């Protein structure tokens, strides 16, 4: 967020105004007032749905089915944390921990494996390197759907269908192309002199990787880590196919309640809100890395 427009903001208005005389300035003033109001409305438009979810999660099913959440402003006494205590008592906590057990190992694996490959692509010479990297670029947008059926069959044959390691490996594989791409592009920017000095000293490659490349790559690794974490935390499709009721993360647990939306709105709203707390905290705490990662992944 910070990178974007801070410098640009005042330029347009300041330079435009003085030359235009009074009428122009009045137009600018009114225009800027209109823009302010418009932006407030748009901001509300983006904020209100989430607020709605939060309020709904704090009211009972009966109250929610009887009246809109906005009546909370006149009837704050109807708020209750009952939905949350019911949810926690219902075994939802186990799916929370499943989400953690899937997300954390995946993120660590993707970072580790992708960083190694990215270092090789960036700073090692081997035959077919450029072609191989083009394959990685090509794999960037392969739809996950392509692997659902083959891997389900493979997991069935191996007996790991429905297990957490199976879900983690699937996520890791599909996280790699982006991770390798992002890190390789960052690693090629490391000054050659640093690596050459280390190699001249006779340091083994794994040592250069651990003590030079990895520490220097921290900003990119942080961005990647946040993205990877959020993708896996928020995934539903892979969980839907490869997790069972024992290993299911929150998204799958909630999805199974969708059929009776009206009567399950207590579980769904509180569960959905719990599931987005962690991503939101991460997002607000690390928004700088989040945005940097997004930029590096798409434009620069």
């Amino acid at each position, binding site marked *: 967020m910070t990178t974007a427009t801070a410098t640009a*903001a005042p330029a347009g208005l300041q330079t*435009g105004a003085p030359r235009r005389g009074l009428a122009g300035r009045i137009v600018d003033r009114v225009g800027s007032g209109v823009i302010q109001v418009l932006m407030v409305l748009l901001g509300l438009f983006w904020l209100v*749905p989430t607020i709605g979810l939060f309020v709904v999660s704090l009211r009972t099913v009966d109250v929610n089915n009887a009246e809109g959440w906005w009546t909370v402003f006149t009837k704050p006494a109807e708020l209750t944390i009952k939905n949350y205590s019911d949810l926690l008592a219902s075994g939802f906590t186990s799916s929370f921990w499943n989400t953690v057990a899937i997300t954390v190992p995946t993120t660590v694996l993707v970072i580790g494996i992708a960083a190694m490959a990215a270092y090789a692509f960036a700073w090692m010479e081997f035959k077919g390197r450029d072609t191989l990297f083009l394959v990685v670029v090509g794999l960037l947008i392969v739809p996950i759907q392509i692997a659902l059926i083959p891997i389900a069959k493979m997991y069935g044959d191996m007996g790991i269908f429905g297990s957490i390691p199976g879900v983690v490996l699937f996520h890791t594989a599909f996280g790699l192309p982006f991770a390798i791409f992002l890190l390789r592009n960052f690693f090629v920017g490391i000054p050659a002199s640093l690596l050459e000095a280390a190699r001249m000293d006779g340091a083994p490659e794994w040592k250069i990787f651990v003590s030079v490349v990895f520490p220097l790559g921290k900003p990119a690794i942080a961005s990647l880590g946040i993205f990877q974490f959020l993708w896996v935390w928020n995934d539903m499709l892979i969980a839907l196919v490869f997790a069972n009721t024992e290993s299911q993360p929150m998204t799958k647990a909630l999805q199974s309640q969708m059929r009776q939306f009206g009567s399950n709105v207590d579980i769904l709203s509180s569960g959905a809100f719990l599931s987005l707390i962690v991503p939101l905290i991460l997002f607000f705490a690390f928004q700088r890395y989040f945005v940097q990662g997004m930029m590096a992944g798409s434009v620069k």
Partner: protein
Amino acid sequence: MTERLDGPAPAVPREEETSRGGAAGPADTPRTTRRLGPSPAVAIAFLLPAAVLLGVWVVYPIVYSLFRSLFDASGKGFVGLGNYTTIFTDAGMLTTIRNNLIWVVVAPIVVTTLGLIFAVLTERIRWATAFKLIVFMPMAVSLMAAGVIFRLVYDEAPDRGVANAILTTVHDTFSSSQGYPEARPREGAQSAVAAQNGGVVTKQAVQAGQPVLVPIVGVKPAAMPKNARPAKAPTGGGGLAGTVWFDFTPGGGGAPNQVDAGEKGLPGMTVEAVKDGQVAGTATTAEDGSFRFEGLPAGSYVVRLPQSNFKAAYNGLTWLGPTLITPAIIGAFVWVWAGFAMVLIAAGLAAIPRDALEAARIDGATEWQVFRRITVPLLSPVLLVVFVTMIINTLKVFDLVFIIAPSSVQPEANVVALEMWRVAFGGGNNQGLGSALAIFLLILVLPFMIMNIRRFRRENA
């Protein structure tokens, strides 16, 4: 967030790479690093884990799916391209493809345009960072949670779903709100009113000081407004006045054509005073059903309740019904992705040299001309990146459709990625057709894959 941001990734070269000259990557300096570089064996060791995972989980499945798509559901009978024929002939599948087309045409344009508007407008406000955080926030939220959020927003009842609540409020601000479908006057010799042209009129002309009683029956309980209060029999006073009420005493009792205790007024009724076929005055009933024409010239009038009172009240749109479901889900998609577009475009905007804009302004260009002739052309690479990313994301859209469309409407809302899951895992159990759909999806994104590779080669040549 299952749709990734990585689509058109290599579209624009990284600045470091192109500008860093001296400390360039190995592409420029293979000879200097070769002597010191490790042996190929070491490189293979570094690449091996990634190669194994990508080979087994990504590349092999493409080959397997291609092969599997040529067989039937059981996997034993070879059907050739039969599964692909099904995709393009089956009526349900064609709906699915049509929906994907709508998605691809509408969603990227809306997201990119909105992103551009937001990016430009945030330059004009002081609280730009706050605004960006708010609009960008949905990116961190799972599409599952976003789906739940929009199921609530699109709830059909205007007193529960915020979308219809806003629509009905806006609608009611501009036109009479209260509707009493199927309500009718109590007719008969005793009654002073009669039905006419779908409305209600007094049988005789009335004048000021002569209270008008308009008894109505057949008001559906659902149509009875919550704010209705017990009806009051009109008492004299200035001007032409009267009461419109529900002539029905709950629990029995009460006399017809008389305002009895426990009978409720009908608020929000439009009442017209008519003279010689012309509407001379209009009034609206209060919560107790009473009305009074202010400033009406003395004389006798026919009091009329026009037909509009007896139409169903406006209740907003059936967002989650078969007709609107795809636009409704696209709305949720826009909510999720507008922040992405805004942030990328804002970064592009910040990189535009201010001098170019200044020069144009000094030459007398209007803000719109500057925007249209300079800003947008300079932004076009970024706009293209956002646009292409959105196309790829719309092709793969799954979670939002799956969660927001109620199961009864899912056939109408269906998209290829969802159909693939439904056919293979969601009860269909036809892995032949499922594989064909997966390959179809891959073919849809193939042009963008090739585009990525070509750009990357060009920029790293």
